């Protein structure tokens, strides 16, 4: 159902129309503390184009809200403006909330946001196997716990988190930088369909609009606004994930980060967040603690294999990934080490990446 008022739709379409020119304008000088996207229409046009453009003003005059609503319906999408019920309250705190949220999938998912806690999970597009595993485990555990999982459907951490949530049959929400009807990145088309059928796909761009460079950080503010908690799994410095965390911090939301390997450049940003005081997240339980309060839920004891030799190998896997190095750490010869690794993998303690490096699985 499309419930967006004409003014809001016009505003959203104006931004979409100016989108190709906004990239340059974002870099230009503007009064401190003022977001470009928060400017009134006329000033926005002047700021983006440099001068009042009669063509754009005339287009603005002639904007046909009825046709715009029809186009949204045509794209099997829906639209919500802040004046409609169901517009996520969390976005209201942004200095520049999206004029209209265009979406696909289940619109009820947004109403659920009022009652159910939501967690935004973001991170690098090229995670380590450990990062992938963590993101997937978080998505799954939070999905099982009935928490809404918000992310950006990007390659890497975002996609892993969504996949985990989908695996758990949870409620995922994806916020895209382009129109809601364009699966982006295209490699996640399958995941897009999964998220759409279980939860919702959101965007501040109308259907059919492609993404721009600046619209990725812009959609990060929406992700930060939608959830009460933002978790960064692995993020480089600087990165979009840190922008999301910054938005969340400005909004006074909880920001957490998963500790990463110190030598991993892809975890430098998330580790910095920890130094700056973000909540240390070592497992999905920590996220649930942040939401429901410490101890509100029982925390499972960490499990270990019964066999002492296997425990030694498992400890080695936590430190290094190469079978040869694992063997050296555990003090075993190559055959013994491989044998133990096969056993541990068969029992689900460890996993291998595409080319044979080992990682401890999150249990």
């Amino acid at each position, binding site marked *: 159902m499309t419930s967006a008022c004409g003014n809001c739709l016009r505003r959203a379409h104006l931004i979409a129309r100016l989108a190709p020119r906004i990239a340059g304008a974002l870099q230009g000088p503007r009064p401190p503390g003022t977001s470009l996207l928060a400017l009134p229409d006329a000033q926005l046009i002047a700021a983006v184009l440099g001068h009042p453009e009669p063509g754009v003003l005339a287009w603005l005059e002639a904007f046909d809200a009825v046709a715009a609503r029809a186009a949204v319906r045509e794209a099997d999408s829906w639209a919500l403006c802040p004046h409609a019920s169901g517009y996520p309250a969390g976005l209201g705190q942004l200095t520049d909330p999206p004029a209209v949220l265009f979406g696909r999938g289940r619109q009820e998912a947004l109403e659920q946001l009022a009652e159910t806690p939501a967690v935004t999970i973001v991170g690098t597009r090229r995670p380590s196997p450990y990062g992938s595993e963590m993101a997937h485990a978080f998505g799954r555990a939070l999905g099982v716990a009935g928490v809404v999982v918000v992310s950006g459907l990007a390659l890497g951490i975002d996609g892993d988190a969504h996949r985990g949530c989908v695996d758990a049959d949870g409620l995922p929400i994806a916020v895209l930088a382009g129109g809601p009807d364009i699966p982006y990145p295209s490699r996640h088309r399958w995941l897009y369909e999964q998220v759409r059928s279980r939860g919702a796909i959101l965007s501040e761009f109308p259907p059919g609009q492609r993404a721009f460079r600046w619209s990725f950080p812009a959609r990060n503010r929406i992700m930060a606004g939608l959830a009460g908690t933002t978790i960064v799994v692995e993020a480089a410095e600087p990165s979009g994930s840190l922008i999301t965390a910054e938005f969340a911090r400005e909004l006074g939301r909880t920001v957490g980060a998963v500790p990463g390997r110190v030598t991993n450049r892809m975890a430098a940003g998330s580790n910095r967040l920890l130094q700056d005081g973000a909540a240390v997240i070592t497992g999905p339980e920590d996220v649930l603690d942040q939401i429901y309060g410490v101890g509100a839920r029982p925390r499972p004891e960490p499990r270990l294999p019964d066999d002492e030799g296997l425990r030694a190998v498992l400890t080695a896997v936590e430190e290094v990934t190469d079978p040869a190095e694992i063997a050296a750490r555990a003090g075993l010869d*190559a055959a013994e080490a491989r044998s133990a690794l096969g056993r541990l993998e068969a029992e689900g303690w460890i996993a291998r990446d*595409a080319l044979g*490096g080992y990682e401890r699985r999150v249990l």
Partner: protein
Amino acid sequence: MLASVATFAIEGIASREVSVEVDVRRGLPTFTLVGLPDRAVREARERVRAALLNSGLDFPQQRLTVNLAPAHVRKAGPGFDLAIAVGVMAATGQVPKQPLESCALYGELSLSGELRRGRGALAVALGARDAGYARLAAAPGDAGEAALVSEVEVIPVESLEDIARLLRGERPAERASPRPPRRRGPEARLDLADVRGQEDAKRALEIAAAGSHNMLMVGPPGAGKTMLARRLPGILPPPSFEEALEITRIGSVAGIGGGELVSERPFRAPHHTISPQGLTGGGLTPRPGEVTLAHRGVLFLDELAEFSRPALDALRQPLEEGRVEIMRGQRTIVFPARAMVVAATNPCPCGRPADACSCDAVLLGRYARRLSGPLLDRIDLVCRLGPVAPLELVREVEGDGTSRRVRRRVLAARERQQRRLEGSGALCNGDMDGRLTRRTVRLGRRLRARLASLPDPGLLSGRGHDRVLRVARTIADLDEREEVGERDLDEALAYRLGAVAAAA
């Protein structure tokens, strides 16, 4: 006057009898060659004419017709020269026809009338044996090779003049003896001790050699992947006589043999720019490709990810069935191709260690996809090579002969396999097909349950299941145990390809 002489045409790695019919009659002096000759065969006319005249023999100034029968088989190469020249001699009464009934001829002529070495002498001798010829006359360079077929009396012939005397009975027919086998080449003398560290990869190499399993080495440049692969011939068991004959025959057809029975398994390392035809064989007159040249030996694919996708895809059938089929017209030519594949690759396109790697997800994904697919599915053992620690490089080698010790274990394991597989058609664990594998490798109920309850079903599906069983069998063989135990199975599982790559 009409004369008929028997010779052989190479087809694949076999040969097919061709009879050369020569007709000489009065008329304008012409020389016509019919029966689907290719260019090299048609040029035989010039060589034959010059060779005969230069040998002091007579070339008829008459109408000369040569037919190569059967007429529908395409004839290629210069190997028909000798038969045509002798046919002309017989048709003009310069030599008696009777000795030619039981003697096949094979060889290329030089203009002086001397015989040159050709390709495929062993295949010709085997063809002559199967066609029931008692004798084969061939160039001295070919005779040693052809003499490996003991059922045929191979007579070395120096020149046209020489064969004329032989056929007239003016000189004795001295039988050629097979050339002594070559000593082990430099490749086989490389020692595993030269490669420092990398115990995990060495263990995988030993298992691969013991059961002839396919193997993939993943590691950064300089870790020793190529060095390890080059040391594989040194730990492989020597070929049996039948295997050696097959290998020699292929090398002979391809023109790469030295004329003697090979004593070691081939090691082929084609460059990654090779075409699909180069790998599997092909051409108008099909020639064996690298996978056939590596038959009963090792096909080493260095920089696996750099090979073209069509080339790797072309390896699919050979690896599965152990042979290559090439269709030419209505005929199918079959090349044997039971090679053990050893591949090496960098872990990522930039080749740097994991924490300094600068490849992004898209690039890594593309790289993994290039590696994956039909070939990776047929890999039994994947091992990782870490960068070599500087300490390892300066450490003295503890003592040579590592390869000799490993080879002894490999040999013992192969003997166990041969005893077990006697009469099944397979020579080692890697040769076993799915049914034979399940019949040979029986697991206890507990181990079966273990395999069935793997957390990640992608780890072991269908083909993968059989491959793990085969490797586990080989590991037990190396340990001289008849029963496949829990530890063998675990080790085999750990060398199995990561599920991610197998599924990609």
